[in-house]
């Protein structure tokens, strides 16, 4: 090993092309990491001094610019979106992996549909949401309209991760269950699904991340009211939309930094949970 490294160093010294490639690869990796570190540290340094208790007051006024209502709204929209997206996404994945026969046309069509959905920009979702949920179905600018829009947006993500998780459950489990006399439904719910839970969870966590970060799709569906939503039909802005609104007004630069810190903290937390889950899944796979 040591010999090969020494040899490599020697080649690098004598062969400019190898050296150049070596240099470029490291430079690129360094640039990527430095950019990320710079963004995070810059936001933290500028934002943490502005994290005052005022910012977490129960109600929003133009003086305290409280982000607390937006935080609660984010939580509400996340929960409601998941309530729609998870059952549908998991159900669809169950149909596609457990029920659909090989060569079933629907598998191909839903695949294309899911791929199309995941490529649509969030502003187009926002526009669709405002045309369909807000106007056509008459839900108005509301938490419900926003959540429904977001649930369509994260549906392909949930579907794909669940499908992959279900596919990775060995067929012998299913055969064993059938052999013991269980029906299809029972096999799916008590044998296959429990094994796939970690994979499904990681998909849900990714979905939560997308919901928390979303703004363009929410402005014209959930609106920008800065108060805690009192019902599912009231307009409510999430943390991202809140940050966008106060950054545009130009009066609240300090508060915007602080809101960015809170948003980053939420995202980092979500990522940590998802890494932990991924490690768990990886660990289980090597055991089994």
């Amino acid at each position, binding site marked *: 090993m040591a010999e090969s490294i020494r040899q490599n160093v020697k080649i690098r010294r004598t062969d400019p092309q190898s*050296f150049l490639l070596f240099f470029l690869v490291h430079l690129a990796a360094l640039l990527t990491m430095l950019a990320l570190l710079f963004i995070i540290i810059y936001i933290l340094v500028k934002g943490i001094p502005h994290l005052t208790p005022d910012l977490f007051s129960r109600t929003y006024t133009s003086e305290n610019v409280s982000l607390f209502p937006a935080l609660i709204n984010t939580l509400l929209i996340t929960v409601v979106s998941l309530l729609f997206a998870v059952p549908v996404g998991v159900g669809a994945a169950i149909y596609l992996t457990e029920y659909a026969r090989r060569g079933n046309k629907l598998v191909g069509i839903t695949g294309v549909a899911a791929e199309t959905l995941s490529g649509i920009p969030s502003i187009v979702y926002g526009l669709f949401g405002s045309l369909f949920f807000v106007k056509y179905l008459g839900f108005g600018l509301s938490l419900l309209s926003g959540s429904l829009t977001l649930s369509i947006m994260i549906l392909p993500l949930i579907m794909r991760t669940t499908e992959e998780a279900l596919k990775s459950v060995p067929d012998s489990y299913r055969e064993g269950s059938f052999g013991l006399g269980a029906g299809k439904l029972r096999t799916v719910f008590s044998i296959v699904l429990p094994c796939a839970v970690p994979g499904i969870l990681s998909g849900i966590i990714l979905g939560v991340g997308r919901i928390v970060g979303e703004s363009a799709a929410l402005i014209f569906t959930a609106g920008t009211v800065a108060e805690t939503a009192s019902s599912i039909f009231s307009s409510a802005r999430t943390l991202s939309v809140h940050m966008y609104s106060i950054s545009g007004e130009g009066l609240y630069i300090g508060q915007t930094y602080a809101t960015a810190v809170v948003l980053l903290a939420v995202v980092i937390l979500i990522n940590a949970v998802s890494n932990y889950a991924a490690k768990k899944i990886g660990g289980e796979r090597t055991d089994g």
Partner: protein
Amino acid sequence: MKHFKESAMKCLFLTTACVSVAAVILICIFLFANGVPAIQKIGVFHFLLGITWKPANNLYGNLPMIIGSLYVTAGALLIGVPVGILTAVFMARFCPKQIYRPMKAAVNLMAGIPSVVYGFFGLVVLVPMVRDLFGGRGMSVLTASILLGLMILPTIISVSETSIRAVPNSYYEGGLALGASHEKSVFFTVVPAAKSGIFAGVVLGIGRAIGETMAVMMVAGNQAAIPAGVTSGVRTLTTNIVLEMGYSTDLHREALIGTAVILFVFILIINISLSLFKRSVQ
């Protein structure tokens, strides 16, 4: 009874499987039904190739925004593609084991940072920087390109890395056995073998760059005119919608939905070409 439950649940699962297809159809119907009549009323030619967007004077030319989107996306690719692919090569083939895990987590985190946070960072850091270095007002094609280049990095890195890792190790070993250095084996045997996956990553990056809204809006200046140079302001298709949707009425509103139709068609073309490409590779 049991049989009934089985088939009822099967029907239910089938229904949920159809939801994604129904969603795509609904999105198409609502966008096209609301946007296409306006495009016809304004005139397809004027709508796509008109160079003035002045809703007050009933001028709805989208060319500045189409060109704006293309410029900004091209700029983002110039920055994001080389850095992204090289970083992916580093992660797959050069990275010491101890660094790999934190680096992977960092790339995932980069993908998870909300676009408003990127946009705000661009506004307070990149805009003054570009203003000082290159002149102009700072809100420009260049600023938006740099920011978008950063934002598409994680997409390009993770897709490229996966495809580089999927190349059989024998390619690399063959290169070494023929006397090539580590770098040369990686770049001249492994990377070319992974090129279809890398290409897919770049196309996904294009999709992200064209579709990005909030971050671009905060740094691009948003003038509805064809940018004269890299330091002049620019308005993209996405930002055009967000900027004016809030107060628009009647034909103006429909014209904005028409802009979304253009954007949607762009994305569909990208998606379809990507899946055709994937199929042809397989």
